[in-house]
């Protein structure tokens, strides 16, 4: 076993990306993700790559668009308000089938919000965020180790299916330190095969074009439908989730990121008091683990979604279950973190009163 290292979530994400072959980063500072560009600024030159602190989020995402068009493993990162600025570029990358990799370390919103950790960008990340019909592959880490090891998977999926990918973390995961072990083999980008669509200076091959538009009548529909096939493949083969104490569970908490960690503590509290609670943690937010939830609903009749938002993922749970089981919500908006005790109380109330919805909005 490799020696564990104490690292910040943001640093682990940056190091994880470099080890997964990232050799170009462009970004613009914003709290609480500043350690990512800071780390990249010295680490990428060391690895033979390039770091650019751009003049804006918009230029950063478009630099990454350019880098990805040449087949390079690249990355940009930001936090919520900055991510809003990048949406046009992400839509263009999705339209041009470019494998860009994005880190979003969410903070309070809407607007400038605050700098504390939040989960209010779920819709933006999983619904596209920019204009047009598209998807991004979205992974939600629950700690520093997953920050370190998820970039590897993101690049793999991004390049295999030609789709933007994202690690959607929150400020707490970004700022906290934990022991980390990098579990993936380190990738030397020189050993990677150049994709057959990548632009370059080679004059001895057929012309290649990277673009997100086709003005000929009917052609865009063909282009989008071809992309949808890949989306279906991703849904079928790349969906990830984790289950804890689900075997005998009568209530399942559904939570990701920091909310999932708090939920583990709430689950233990509830178990001590005799409530049979389990945890279902979506690891990919898109594709969302719908099929498994449907399977679980055959024996679990009560689901409680725990989120640091007004309630966004709860809609995916409702869509997945489609009325098969009760869906409750413990919402904590405004960039604050629910406590295990609060979540336990909500569970207790659901069991006792069978009430439909609990929003902890104060």
């Amino acid at each position, binding site marked *: 076993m490799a020696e*564990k290292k104490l690292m910040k979530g943001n640093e682990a994400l940056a190091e994880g990306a470099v080890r997964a072959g990232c050799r170009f980063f462009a970004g613009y500072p914003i709290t609480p993700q500043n350690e990512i560009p800071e780390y990249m600024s010295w680490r990428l030159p060391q690895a033979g790559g390039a770091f650019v602190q751009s003049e804006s989020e918009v230029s950063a995402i478009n630099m990454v668009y350019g880098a990805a068009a040449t087949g390079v493993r690249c990355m940009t990162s930001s936090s919520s308000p900055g991510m809003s600025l990048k949406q046009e570029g992400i839509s263009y990358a999705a339209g041009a089938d470019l494998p860009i990799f994005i880190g979003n370390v969410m903070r309070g919103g809407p607007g400038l919000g605050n700098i504390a950790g939040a989960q209010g960008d779920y819709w933006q990340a999983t619904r596209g965020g920019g204009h047009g019909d598209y998807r991004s592959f979205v992974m939600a880490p629950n700690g520093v180790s997953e920050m370190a090891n998820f970039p590897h998977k993101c690049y793999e999926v991004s390049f295999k299916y030609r789709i933007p990918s994202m690690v959607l973390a929150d400020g707490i995961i970004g700022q*906290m330190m934990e022991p980390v072990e990098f579990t993936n083999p380190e990738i030397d980008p020189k050993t990677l095969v150049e994709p057959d669509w990548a632009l370059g200076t080679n004059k001895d091959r057929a012309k290649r074009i990277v673009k997100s538009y086709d003005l000929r009548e009917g052609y865009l529909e063909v282009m989008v439908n071809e992309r949808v096939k890949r989306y279906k493949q991703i849904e079928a083969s790349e969906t990830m989730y984790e289950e804890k104490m689900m075997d005998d569970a009568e209530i399942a908490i559904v939570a990701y990121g920091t909310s999932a960690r708090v939920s583990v*503590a709430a689950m233990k509290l509830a178990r001590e008091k005799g409530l049979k609670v389990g945890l279902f943690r979506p690891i990919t937010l898109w594709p969302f683990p719908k099929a498994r939830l449907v399977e679980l609903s055959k024996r679990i009749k009560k689901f409680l979604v725990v989120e640091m938002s007004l309630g966004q993922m709860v809609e995916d749970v409702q869509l997945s279950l489609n009325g098969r089981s009760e869906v409750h919500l413990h919402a904590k908006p405004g960039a604050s973190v629910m406590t295990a005790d609060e979540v336990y109380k909500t569970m207790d109330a659901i069991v006792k009163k069978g009430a439909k919805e609990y929003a902890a909005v104060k």
Partner: protein
Amino acid sequence: MYQGIRISGFGGQGVISAGVLLAQAGMMEGKEVSFFPSYGAEMRGGTANCSVVVASDEVSTPIVSTPDTAIVLNEPSLVKFEPTVRPGGLLIVNSSLVNSKPTRTDIKVLYVPCNQVAGELGNGKVMNMVALGAFAAATGAISVDAIARALPKVYKKLKPEVIELNVKALRRGAEFKLN
């Protein structure tokens, strides 16, 4: 075993450094650990605090809202964190800078004149180590030796004599005992 710690003081007192060091020491002792800083508009002279968890099981949330131990290095920190300590928990007060007395009777209080001790050792900067030494001895959550071993891991550029001074400060801090 679970020990949730909150360390708080002025920016520049080594609050964040002390927290990272505790987490590193806990990790080196084979425990589950987490560290979470207050971040953002922190600056020298402003306030800073951090949460550290050292536990035998996986750490659920890294934010310690009801600490088993709070280490307060300045007056505003006492006001802010005394009410949050778990009943039966420990409050370590830097009596060199904190003039007020804690009012709660359901917690243990350990007074350590951190600045004074650090001054006696010849470098006021090691006052945070005096506090950590006192914490280690009073709680047994982490050993002074583990913190000493963690020092060169966290601060790779420190000269050996500076490390030695920090270790001295840790050991002096460990001499302060609860009544």
